[in-house]
């Protein structure tokens, strides 16, 4: 019998010395769901994934993945999941096919079946033509696609994607979204995705959890989260802001009216319906409006609402250091 829950965590906690990377996380993810873990750099997303993939042991608390305990049945957990890591994890001296063959060996995919599956996943990510070139000749996007293919090779029930499109150009990103979206629609697979690209989460995820300082700030569907931010923002540009703002306040057109030197911002539940009324009022009192714009809350606004606008410390593994390591001889 298939367990209905793909992932369940109970007070999952990870401490690194004084730092609490993940703080008593309680999370349930259903089978077949595409679930997004969002959060700023260093919020604990990768640590959560690492614990669920049994690479890192929790300091306290526990979790089950596909019904298997991450501490006691790590081998069964590993067999049932596929992972695309945040950082590249392919052997670039080997060809694409050789990387996949090694993966098939490591995950007990029988040789005959592996042959068929390799053709299948290469086709899925559109890399059949390049399968026999060494990975060194692949572009960043192609590497990522091969990693995605590799993660699917052993038909995992859950696929973890840790920042799958980090550092890719917009075209490649769109392509990857398409692959992932297709996968979610056409198979039973559960996908857990971490990202800090809000568009990505909005487009792919059925539910998202916004995480900060190792805790879940909020968890819901992207649509509900946006609605919960209470409506749209209308910005009116005019030279006579005071006059218009006073009138609008009198008429109680909006709960929140901010006026500055040359613009007024109104928070309203439904912007389209209000705009004709707004223009009419302005005309009545003889205020000339030079422009009106509507801003719909995006997942980005939701994200900033829950995590604040402070700039975060960069993660320890800075790109500069990596760049410097690349130049080392004797590899």
């Amino acid at each position, binding site marked *: 019998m298939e367990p209905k829950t793909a992932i369940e965590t109970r007070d999952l906690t990870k401490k690194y010395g004084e730092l609490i990377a993940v703080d008593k996380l309680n999370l349930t993810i259903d089978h077949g769901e595409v679930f997004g873990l969002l959060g700023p750099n260093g919020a604990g997303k990768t640590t959560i994934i690492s614990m669920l*993939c*049994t*690479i*890192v*042991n929790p300091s306290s608390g526990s979790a089950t993945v596909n019904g298997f305990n991450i501490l006691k049945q790590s*081998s069964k957990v*590993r*067999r049932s999941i596929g*992972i695309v*890591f945040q*950082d*590249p*994890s*392919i*052997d*670039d*001296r*080997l060809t694409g096919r*050789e990387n996949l*063959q*090694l*993966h*098939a*060996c*490591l*995950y*007990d995919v029988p040789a005959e079946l592996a042959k068929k599956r390799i053709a299948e996943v290469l086709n899925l990510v559109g890399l059949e033509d390049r399968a026999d070139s*060494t990975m060194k000749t692949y572009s960043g996007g192609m590497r990522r696609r091969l990693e995605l293919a*590799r993660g699917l090779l052993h038909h995992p029930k859950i696929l973890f994607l840790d920042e799958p499109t980090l550092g890719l150009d917009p075209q490649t990103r769109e392509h990857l979204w398409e692959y992932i979206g297709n996968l979610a629609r056409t198979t039973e697979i559960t996908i857990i995705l971490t990202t800090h690209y809000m568009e990505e989460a909005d487009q792919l995820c059925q539910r998202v959890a916004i995480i900060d300082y190792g805790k879940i700030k909020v968890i819901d569907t992207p649509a509900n989260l946006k609605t919960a931010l209470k409506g749209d923002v209308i910005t009116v540009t005019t030279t006579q802001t005071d006059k218009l703002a006073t009138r609008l306040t009198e008429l109680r057109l909006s709960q929140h009216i901010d006026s500055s030197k040359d613009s007024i911002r109104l928070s309203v539940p439904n912007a389209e319906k209000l705009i004709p009324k707004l223009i009419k009022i302005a005309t009545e009192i003889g205020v000339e409006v030079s422009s009106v714009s509507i801003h719909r809350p995006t997942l980005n606004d939701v994200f900033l609402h829950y995590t604040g606008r402070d700039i975060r410390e960069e993660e320890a593994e800075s790109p500069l250091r990596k760049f410097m*390591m690349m130049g*080392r001889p*004797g*590899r």
Partner: protein
Amino acid sequence: MSELRKIYGLWHREVLRYWREKSRIVSSLIMPLLWLLVFGSGLRGVQISGGLTYQTYIFPGILGMTLLFTSVFSGVSVIWDREFGFLKEIMVAPVSRPSIVIGKALGSGTSALIQGTILLPLSFLVGVHLSPLSFVILLPTMVLISIGLVSVGLLMASLMTSMEGFNFIMSLVIMPMFFTSGALFPLTSAPAWLRDFSYINPLTYGVDVLRWAAFSGADSILPIYIEFLILLLFAAAMIAACSYTFGLKK
């Protein structure tokens, strides 16, 4: 059985990588040739008991040195796998830690076998006449020595955070192991304190077995079967130690 296939997969990867890097194969042969042909010629006047020339005498020692350098380096190179992320793919796969270490060790053993097959026929250049039997004994011994040494490299790598520590390993582990192994001079003429070091150095027994095999029954420090046993135990102990350190989770 399934673990065997995983070991095979990891071994195959090592071999593919080794084979694609022809320059590494060539460069691993230059060092021993320099030692044999230049250093060996320079010290030709040195008298070795048993009527061997110095060049002939050091041949098995240079084989041991080649294994030492390439195997330890091959083990340490797992740092690159860590740096470039590939290690994660292996570490998160449902593979037992000993299988990971054994796969790597066998891969390095295979490169030792290839090197040996290239180096051994060159022995005639320095006046060593290998019998077919010597070949049969030398090659597996080289593999066995290599398996132990690659694990030394892996163990070092697990203690290092970056390739910066490699010089440290070079001067604190590799060079002392080389110099005290009896590769370059007979230990019988060494002072007692040096001999003590030699006797705790596993490579000493490796070189001794190689020498015994190359010169068809030269005197050995301990009975040959015991030296074999030491090499075997050393390889097993190192694999166990590496499996342990690889199994540690953060």
